């Protein structure tokens, strides 16, 4: 079987998890825990294995792209919608880490979701989520990608509000769905525009992007970027991601590490000819990314919830990726997507393990000293912490450094400065989280045995918002390490977070990922630091900033907290701390805007346009025909002889007509 024959079977990659989802949805009632979990994990694992086969096959074909058409969905005149998949370095790279990380998260979920009454339903959704993401990255055109794009939107809704008994979770799911839909509109408008100008939506037509006028390219690029902003939770559509923490922790891990939020990076990288053609769009992307990296980093500094810190951290790290895309360093952005998948996956699974092991609390202020009780989790978490803070030789160092170096070499000094500042913040907030959870004094024990409780009211949300009083310490026993399925996943991902840097070391012959992605980005000029010494100086600077962040946080949080409601960092920050804590009052401002002017405007529309113009037109037409009928009613006298007269006169009239016409 030749390599290109093998690549014709690319559709198996999304089909395997989809089959899992369908099976579990149809027979979920009969397939019991833990079999459902193992079935789902095995199918995603198989999908990963098959992606590896695809990867090996793709290395043998020249040119490095292979398109397969499965069938024609909608043949409509000059416009064919084909269900087709495209294997090229970009799509296979994404598929590899999506399936790989998702397999580990599935494995973790078997332990985490133990005892849940909708166990098999959960795995059906997880499988569907992965399948949708794979359709998104493997599609051969914008339309198939959009299918997956909407699919991940639906799955995020289903999974974020998976524990729908909690009102907060149901609302968070809705918020995620509605917010990302705002971006989806941009994506749709971009597709209309692309079809209008290029007469096709296939990625093969991207070569012709350079023939468009700059204005059109800018419009398409910015509309696509709006879609990316929604999915990847960039400012100002970032509001859904922190609230999405209401979902089960493996879902957060899946959303943050493998599926969903990386879709925005993917679409910008895929459609880069439009962006390259428009300087404005590139500048917007770079600055939105840089701004988001900085803002989300500051918000993460003072959050009291273990998962919310990670959520804002993801927003910040995604900002880095868009910063990289905006300066034209596509390979660097994708490198960071991969390393981020590993270390953020580790952090989220670690957080899940901590929550699982310490009585379902998410409040950093009532944890502390947990490394003794959860040694494996702590190991994975600490490694991922060093990676995200950009410490050499962990993977995060290489990716973040490459992005900052690219920004500097591309002479975008403004975004470079912001990026370096965000590196300092990353060190700060991650160190705070690690030390509040795993080091310092133990704050989780209930003072009286009567206050100890393990099980929560299931309708109460465990999420701790800024400003909430610390949730009471409530354990009367030691926290426990998680089962082996969970720790295996954490340690495996943690190991990847350590070594993933070798994918793209900044030395000529070792830039494996950049070389591999070369066919996709061959039209883009390469960015390199001017000299080795220059590159080294830049690295030293960014590591130093990260170290400063870590040391400052260490000095503040090494001892833990004296009292749960006293956060030394928050006290130092004063007014700014409260501003960060409330996420710059962004949500409240939107809420106030909607409650005030928007509602008043809607009321005005209701009173004038709706009840007068629209209702007036409808009622007017009804009234017109009513009165017409009322008039005609009089003709119906009910007397037979009148009707007979009508018939006779009619016949006479016809006769006369025929006589006159001859």
């Amino acid at each position, binding site marked *: 079987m030749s390599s290109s024959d093998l690549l014709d079977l690319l559709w198996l990659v999304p089909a395997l998890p989809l089959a899992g989802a369908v099976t579990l949805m149809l027979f979920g009632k009969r397939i019991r825990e833990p079999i459902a979990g193992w079935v789902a994990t095995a199918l995603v694992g198989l999908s990963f294995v098959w992606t590896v086969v695809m990867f090996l096959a793709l290395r043998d074909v020249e040119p490095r792209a292979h398109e397969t058409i499965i069938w024609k969905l909608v043949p409509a005149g000059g416009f064919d919608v084909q269900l087709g998949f495209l294997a090229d370095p970009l799509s296979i790279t994404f598929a590899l880490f999506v399936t790989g990380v998702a397999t580990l998260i599935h494995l973790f979920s078997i332990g985490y979701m133990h005892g849940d009454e909708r166990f098999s339903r959960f795995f059906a959704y997880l499988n569907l989520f992965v399948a949708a993401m794979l359709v998104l990255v493997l599609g051969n055109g914008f339309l198939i990608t959009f299918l997956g794009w909407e699919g991940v939107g639906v799955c995020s809704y289903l999974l974020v509000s998976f524990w729908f008994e909690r009102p907060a979770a149901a609302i968070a799911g809705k918020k995620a769905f509605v917010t990302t839909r705002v971006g989806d509109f941009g994506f749709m408008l971009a597709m209309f525009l692309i079809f209008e100008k290029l007469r096709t939506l296939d990625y093969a037509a991207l070569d012709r992007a350079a023939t468009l006028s700059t204005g059109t390219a800018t419009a398409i690029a910015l509309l696509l970027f709006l879609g990316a902003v929604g999915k990847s939770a960039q400012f100002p559509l970032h509001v859904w991601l922190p609230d999405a923490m209401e979902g089960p922790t493996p879902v957060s891990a899946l959303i943050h590490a493998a599926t969903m939020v990386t879709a925005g990076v993917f679409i910008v990288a895929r459609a880069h000819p439009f962006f390259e053609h428009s300087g404005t769009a590139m500048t917007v992307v770079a600055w939105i990314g840089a701004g988001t990296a900085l803002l989300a980093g500051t918000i993460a500094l003072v959050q009291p919830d273990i998962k919310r810190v990670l959520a804002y951290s993801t927003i910040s790290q995604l900002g880095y990726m868009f910063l990289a895309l905006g300066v034209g360093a596509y390979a660097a952005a994708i490198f960071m997507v991969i390393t981020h998948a590993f270390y953020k996956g580790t952090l989220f699974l670690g957080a899940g393990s901590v929550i699982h092991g310490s009585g379902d609390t998410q409040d950093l202020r009532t944890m502390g000293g947990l490394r003794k009780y959860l040694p494996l989790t702590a190991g994975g978490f600490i490694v991922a912490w060093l990676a995200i803070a950009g410490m050499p030789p962990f993977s995060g160092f290489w990716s973040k450094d490459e992005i900052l170096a690219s920004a500097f070499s591309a002479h975008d000094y403004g975004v470079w400065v912001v990026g370096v500042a965000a590196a300092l913040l990353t060190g700060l907030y991650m160190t705070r989280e690690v030390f509040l959870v795993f080091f310092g004094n133990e704050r989780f024990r209930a003072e009286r045995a009567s206050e100890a409780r393990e099980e929560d009211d299931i309708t109460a949300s465990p999420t701790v918002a800024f400003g909430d009083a610390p949730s009471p310490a409530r354990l009367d026993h030691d926290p426990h390490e998680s089962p082996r399925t969970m720790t295996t996943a954490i340690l495996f991902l943690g190991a990847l977070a350590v070594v993933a840097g070798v994918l793209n070391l900044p030395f000529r012959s070792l830039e494996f990922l950049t070389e591999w992605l070369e066919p996709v980005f061959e039209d883009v000029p390469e960015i390199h630091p001017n000299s080795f010494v220059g590159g080294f100086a830049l690295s030293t600077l960014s590591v130093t900033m990260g170290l400063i962040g870590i040391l400052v946080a260490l000095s503040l949080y090494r001892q833990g907290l004296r009292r749960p409601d006293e956060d030394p960092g928050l006290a130092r920050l004063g007014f700014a701390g409260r501003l960060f804590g409330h996420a710059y009052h962004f949500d409240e401002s939107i809420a106030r805007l909607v409650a005030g002017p928007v509602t008043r405007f809607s009321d005005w529309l209701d009173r004038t346009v709706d009840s007068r113009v629209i209702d007036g037109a409808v009622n007017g037409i009804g009234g017109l025909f009513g009165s017409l009928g009322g008039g005609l*009613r009089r003709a119906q*006298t009910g007397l*037979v*002889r009148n009707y*007979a*007269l009508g018939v*006779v006169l009619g016949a006479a009239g016809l006769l006369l007509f025929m006589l006159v016409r001859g």
Partner: protein
Amino acid sequence: MTLAAADVTANYYLVLAALLFTVGAIGLLVRRNVLVMFMCVELMLNAANLTFVTFARELDDVGGQAIVFFTLVVAAAEVAVGLGIIVAIFRRRRGATADDLHILKG
């Protein structure tokens, strides 16, 4: 003076038919008794039949005669239904004046 068969042209029949039809039509419009109105309708039908056979003979075409059979069949059916309705009306309200039956007034 006797009229020879040859003197009686087709026009005589057609005029007679037209007269019959007019009598029927006027009767239908001015009489109120349902039975009489019914008979007027029959008169009009037969006026039409007369026209048909006249032309059948004049044009030497058997089609006109054939149509008369159809008309008779339809008329018979109509009589059966119509008389049935009239009998039903008589049973309910002893006497049948067409103008009394106006409950379908709009």
